[in-house]
């Protein structure tokens, strides 16, 4: 069993005290310990934002990339070496806003990555503008009269595209969250975990206690996450009762499983052959 301290990074963490990201970071470490994935075997890819800084705060191989672009970077890395375990940390702005098209297509590809969306319903890093998940009426320094566009429902969105692993976590329930991350990493295909994350500095409505009094764990009910219609129904629940846990899961071959070239070995482990190329060139 790995010691959880192997993930400790000495890079100074500047998240605001009380930020939900700290709990997500701990849940990640716990999940990696349980899965037995050492820092050397882990690649974390992230976009830009407070959430996307996560890989600096734990020991791992890391690519902290561009706003919105974590998924294509991770997709490329997975195609190059499908033996890698790749986790993506992203924010609701990073993933559902700037990188929306990439999310659509990562789901369509069913590329074997685990996407953690730290959903704080606000742009944290840029100091509190509305995000695609901000609720109607949310007042910010930019949206002075409140948000007038409807919020995106990430769970129904992912379901509608045929995602093969969809879960909702809450940073305040670390035990459940680390289990969800484990299941996401173990799932062969694209996993999206939308994580409800209080932002103590810029979201004064959806606070820790706001969530705490609303969330419930689907696993403690008779819900079974294998029925798409039922999942779509549950994905609409929001308000007094907010379901968390695995909402839908199914087994379908992942993107790299469907590529014949990758059946025998990873792309990175293949060999250049002068003869093979000369065979083609000599026929010109």
């Amino acid at each position: 069993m790995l010691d959880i301290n192997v993930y400790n990074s000495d890079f100074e963490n500047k998240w605001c005290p009380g930020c939900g990201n700290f709990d997500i970071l701990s849940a990640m470490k716990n999940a990696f310990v349980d899965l037995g994935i050492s820092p050397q075997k882990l690649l974390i890819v992230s976009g830009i934002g407070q959430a996307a800084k996560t890989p600096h705060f734990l020991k791992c191989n890391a690519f902290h990339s561009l706003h919105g672009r974590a998924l294509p970077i991770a997709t490329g890395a997975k195609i190059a070496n499908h033996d890698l375990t790749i986790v993506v940390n992203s924010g609701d702005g990073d993933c559902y806003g700037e990188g929306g098209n990439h999310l659509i297509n990562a789901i369509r590809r069913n590329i074997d990555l685990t996407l953690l969306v730290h959903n704080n319903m606000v742009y944290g890093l840029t100091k509190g503008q509305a995000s695609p998940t901000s609720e109607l009426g949310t007042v910010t320094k930019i949206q002075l009269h409140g948000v007038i566009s409807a919020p995106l429902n990430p769970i129904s969105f992912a379901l509608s595209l045929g995602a093969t692993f969809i879960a909702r976590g809450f940073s305040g329930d670390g035990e459940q969250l680390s289990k969800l991350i484990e299941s996401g990493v173990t799932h062969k295909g694209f996993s999206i975990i939308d994580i409800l994350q209080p932002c103590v500095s810029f979201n004064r409505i959806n606070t820790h206690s706001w969530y705490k009094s609303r969330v419930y764990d689907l696993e403690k009910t008779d819900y079974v996450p294998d029925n798409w219609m039922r999942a779509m129904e549950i994905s609409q629940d929001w308000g007094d009762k907010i379901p968390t846990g695995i909402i839908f899961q199914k087994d379908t071959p992942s993107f790299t499983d469907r590529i014949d070239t990758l059946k025998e070995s990873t792309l990175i482990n293949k060999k250049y052959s002068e003869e093979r190329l000369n065979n083609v060139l000599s026929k010109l």
Partner: protein
Amino acid sequence: MNSSNSVAAGAGLGLMEVAFESLSHILKKKFQSKSKDVVEMNLSAAKFGYDSVKDISLKTTLKWNRRKPKGALIDGSKAFALGALAGDCRFASFYPMSPATGIMAQLSLLADDFPLVVEQAEDELAAINMIIGSSFAGVRSITATSGGGFCLMTEGLGLAGITETPVVIINAQRPGPATGLPTRTAQGDLLFTIRAAQDEFPRFVFAPGTPFEAFQITARAFKLSEKYQVPVILLTDQFLNDSLFISEKPFRAPKSIPRFTVEDKDIKAPEQYNRFKLTKSGVSPRALPCNGEALVVVTGNEHSEDGHISEEIKDRVNMARKRRSKVKNMIKEMKPPQLLYEKSKTLLVCWGSTKGAVMEAVEVLRSRKMDVGCLIFSDIWPFPSDHVISALEKCKKFVMVELNQTAQLGQLIRELTGLSYSDAILKFDGRPIYPNDIVERVIQFI
């Protein structure tokens, strides 16, 4: 039934004074699966077209050489694709855009027989970032696009720059901003390409002039990109990509592929590995993620040697200097522009795919006793100033030949060598330039 195509083919070839048998041979072959009637009808239609232009004679006539030409019949697109394989490229990601799509279509055709994955990305942002991800993980990768797509890629280009991740990007030029003229040709992106993306970071820019050069330079691009850990951009255009050329020089695969990455055994203390270790050459030993003890950390933020975010003055200055310091060795990799008839009083200066037209124009002009040579660039950036100065110093004047409005290479030469072109033959109507266009203008200048 309609055989107007055959009438047109007959008339066209008649104007070019091709022997009718050549056409009838092709028509018979083309329609061999059809009934005899169809063949006959097309033959007579072609003959009708052929005969109807008998009395028209064009200003220029073509000499028809009936021997089978030596060498390969190949377009630029295929040559770029094969060049990528000769550079051991294993991943290609792209979003369709003319005139770059042909390169990816060629790579797709090859993908079943090579260790190669080709993926159509959801957009150019994804295309560039996917190849950055795959290259980061250790696989040589390419993308190809045209100006509009290249605009979308520029943030990714900067990411490759600051994370020092090797990538090869082909920008197949077409005329106009925005959508422009999608199926026409141009050389309007030179200055944009050498400066694309914010701030400053080193890159290579090459512009092959023929399919053979496209093949060789693409293979070389992969090597240089990995050796210096910088992006390489190849400039081509619709004319080079889509035209068929006869290439006499044989295409050959390299014996082996030199690699420029390190493993734990090459690193003194892998547990303390720093991806951006400061070195004299500016190039840090590059390990691959999840390949041993060495942890590889990179970020698009400015960073310290260990790859973590830093806004310290020391780190910012050191990293910017480190990246910049690669240029002195990168310049040594630049081949001098090709100089033909070096002692000529007048030199025509061009780059990329106008090479053929310029060389032909020079021959025509010399046959008319005019003292004209040419200087042809394929290696453009970092700018090989010393080579350019020594080539241009001796001529009395030089004339730019470019497919843009403002003589972009001419501007660059002036900026970086102080030497000014005296005239410029510029064509920006979207059509390729022909030797005659050049000859007629040069005669006016001299």
